[in-house]
């Protein structure tokens, strides 16, 4: 078996210490799990900083660490839009305005809120689609992990995913949500400590941020963009053709910043569940706000390694005017340059496959091209351009910069991110399955013990389905884009339903249900009628015929989300107005206008959600301006 690097005893020791602690936490917390509320909601006993870090960590799964590194290499610093536009405002919104309804109502899950606010069918639709999505996501995550570890250190695919899934199963089975949350906090710090030296060493290698800017300007020119296209987040967003993301500002702000982001952060039970485990209403509301602080710094940790992977390990570029008069010349010079100076371990690995020259010539920085498994040759898109394996950007950085010891830490951090993401999915799944599906439709009215047992059984079969999904998962160039697509279909209309449910008391169950269905349908139709440039009709869209072509897959995803949201919003209002609303009495604590406003003026400012939210928003704005 060929692989990129191998581990020493010190690397394995680091990994074993980590495994020991995560398993130990499961054992230590088992005795606190007495009833189903302890298992599914951690007995609502955790302080805000713990739930806050778990909130961020459950989201910091493989899609984040690997996917955002990949996007960093693909799109540059504009990837930060996923954070400063596509996360922070929604996190502030859910903490300040929506948490009072989630935590304050009697709901134990997000689907259950829908049942209380609307009706059974709306809850059922959400619960079933959500449960499916969580097991599927953790399957995709497992698949990616198994493939990656196999490539990096030669572990067998089956063994790696079985061990990782086994560990997650053990600690969630034992300690439930509390154990998952404790481990998520531990994993959060491990991910930070595992990746921070990567950024430090990488930046040092290229001469700091200004050195990175200079080198990426060269990459930008080679791809036909202006100098700053990879290092400025907003400057080139006026025109989709002028930036590597292939999206213009309106699609970005509406599609990502509003529809997708609010749809995910404000309605996804995976994250909301962490806040619901907090020990008080105030702590629940502060959970996403506390999470927002590390979230807005995350781009430096996960995006920069991807950007660095494009340019590390090479001599500083010559002044641009004598390198390239035209983009084509730049590419020619660059290929030669890369062939001379970059000898990634990956190249050595491929020497065994007999195509080393091709690989090194076509690598970009230390990112290798995707290899066609059938021919062993680099893959090309339908315009003849090489398809790079962007998901390897961050892992290749680890291999390049970390010596034995730190490499063990880096890989453990990677494993930690897979596990925290998976545990997030598994705990959300077992709760929704047990409360919203099993207790509601299959076996209502049983004892609490019965449901606690079912929660544990659901943990086992949830993980079993994930493992099956991992074996079946198809390969995509960028994990994040696949998940964004799934979010677009199922989650995009959701925020319309919740926003109308929480802030418009006239919205009805029939309206919500019809709205959700038509929103999801609209997403499918929109996706089926459009295609990103350079793609073939099929999984990428266009299956009903191509009416419109988008400059990039992300642009298509954002506009699909906008179509879904708008349809759901309009249909929900129209149907609601035609159907009978519930009485005000029934909706107390579930709708804004029928719920007493939370007073927090006697708390110090840093414990007040509104004040904290304002500080977070100003900081996010400052970051946007800094990298404008």
């Amino acid at each position, binding site marked *: 078996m060929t692989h990129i690097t191998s581990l020493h005893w010190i690397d394995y020791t*680091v990994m074993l*210490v980590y495994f020991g602690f995560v398993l*130990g936490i499961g054992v230590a917390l088992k005795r*606190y799990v007495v009833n189903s509320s302890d298992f599914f909601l951690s007995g609502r006993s955790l302080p805000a900083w713990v739930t806050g870090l778990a909130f961020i960590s459950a989201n910091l799964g493989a899609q984040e660490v690997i996917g955002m590194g990949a996007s960093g290499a693909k799109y540059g610093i504009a990837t930060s839009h996923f954070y400063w536009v596509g996360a922070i405002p929604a996190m502030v919104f859910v903490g300040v305005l929506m948490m009072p309804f989630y935590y304050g109502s009697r709901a134990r899950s997000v689907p259950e809120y829908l049942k209380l606010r609307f009706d059974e069918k709306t809850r059922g639709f959400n619960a079933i689609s959500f449960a499916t999505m969580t097991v599927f996501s953790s399957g995709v995550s497992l698949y990616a992990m198994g493939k990656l570890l196999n490539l990096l250190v030669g572990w067998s695919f089956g063994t790696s995913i079985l061990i990782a899934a086994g560990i997650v199963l053990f600690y969630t089975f034992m300690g439930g949500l509390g154990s998952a949350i404790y481990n998520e*906090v531990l994993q959060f*710090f491990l991910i930070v400590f595992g990746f921070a030296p990567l950024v430090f060493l990488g930046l040092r290698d290229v001469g700091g941020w200004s050195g990175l800017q200079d080198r990426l300007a060269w990459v930008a020119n080679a791809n036909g963009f202006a100098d700053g296209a990879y290092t400025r987040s907003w400057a080139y967003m006026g025109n989709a053709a002028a930036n590597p993301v292939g999206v213009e500002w309106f699609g970005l702000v509406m599609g990502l910043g509003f529809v997708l982001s609010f749809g995910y952060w404000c309605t996804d039970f995976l994250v909301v569940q962490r806040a619901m485990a907090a020990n008080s209403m105030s702590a629940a509301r502060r959970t996403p706000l506390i999470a927002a602080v590390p979230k807005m710094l995350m781009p430096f940790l996960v995006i920069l390694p991807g950007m660095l992977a494009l340019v590390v390990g090479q001599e500083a570029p010559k002044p641009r005017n004598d390198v390239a008069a035209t983009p084509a010349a730049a590419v020619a010079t660059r290929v030669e340059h890369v062939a001379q100076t970059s000898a990634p371990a990956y190249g050595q690995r491929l020497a065994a496959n007999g195509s080393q020259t091709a690989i090194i010539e076509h690598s970009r920085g230390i990112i290798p091209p995707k290899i066609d498994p059938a021919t062993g040759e680099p893959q090309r898109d339908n315009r003849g351009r090489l398809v790079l394996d962007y998901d390897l950007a961050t892992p290749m950085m680890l291999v390049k910069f970390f010596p034995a010891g*730190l490499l063990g830490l880096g890989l453990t951090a990677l494993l930690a991110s897979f596990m925290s993401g998976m545990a997030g999915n598994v705990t959300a799944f077992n709760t929704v399955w047990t409360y919203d599906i099993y207790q509601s439709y299959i076996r209502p009215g049983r004892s609490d013990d019965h449901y606690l047992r079912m929660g544990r059984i659901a943990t086992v079969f949830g993980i079993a389905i994930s493992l099956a999904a991992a074996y079946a998962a198809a390969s995509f160039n960028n994990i994040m884009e696949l998940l964004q697509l799934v979010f677009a279909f199922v989650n995009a209309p959701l925020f319309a339903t919740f926003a109308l449910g929480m802030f418009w008391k006239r919205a009805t169950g029939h309206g919500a249900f019809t709205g959700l269905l038509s929103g999801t349908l609209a997403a499918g139709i929109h996706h089926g009628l459009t295609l990103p440039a350079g793609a073939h009709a099929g999984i990428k869209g266009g299956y009903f015929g191509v009416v419109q072509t988008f400059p990039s897959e992300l642009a298509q995803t954002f506009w699909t989300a906008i179509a879904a949201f708008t349809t759901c919003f309009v249909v929900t209002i129209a149907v609601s107005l035609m159907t009978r609303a519930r009485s005000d009495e029934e909706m107390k604590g579930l709708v804004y206008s029928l719920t007493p406003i939370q007073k927090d003026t006697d708390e110090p400012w840093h414990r007040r959600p509104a004040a904290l939210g304002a500080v977070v928003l100003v900081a996010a704005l400052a970051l946007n301006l800094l990298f404008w």
Partner: protein
Amino acid sequence: MRLDIRWPIGLMFAILGALLAVYGGVTLGQPGTAPGGVPINLYWGLVMLAFGLLMLAGATKGRKKG
């Protein structure tokens, strides 16, 4: 929840930090251990050790208070 989470975090980072720092110290000067001339195992091990001890100090203080 009655277990202060700072105990496991502090303990784990103290152990991992000490492990890396000692390993970094022992292998100091060996080829391939210092990317860009930085003995990173030693330095980063010490940083992690300090973080671990800080967490443990917090947990100890919390126990006295509680």
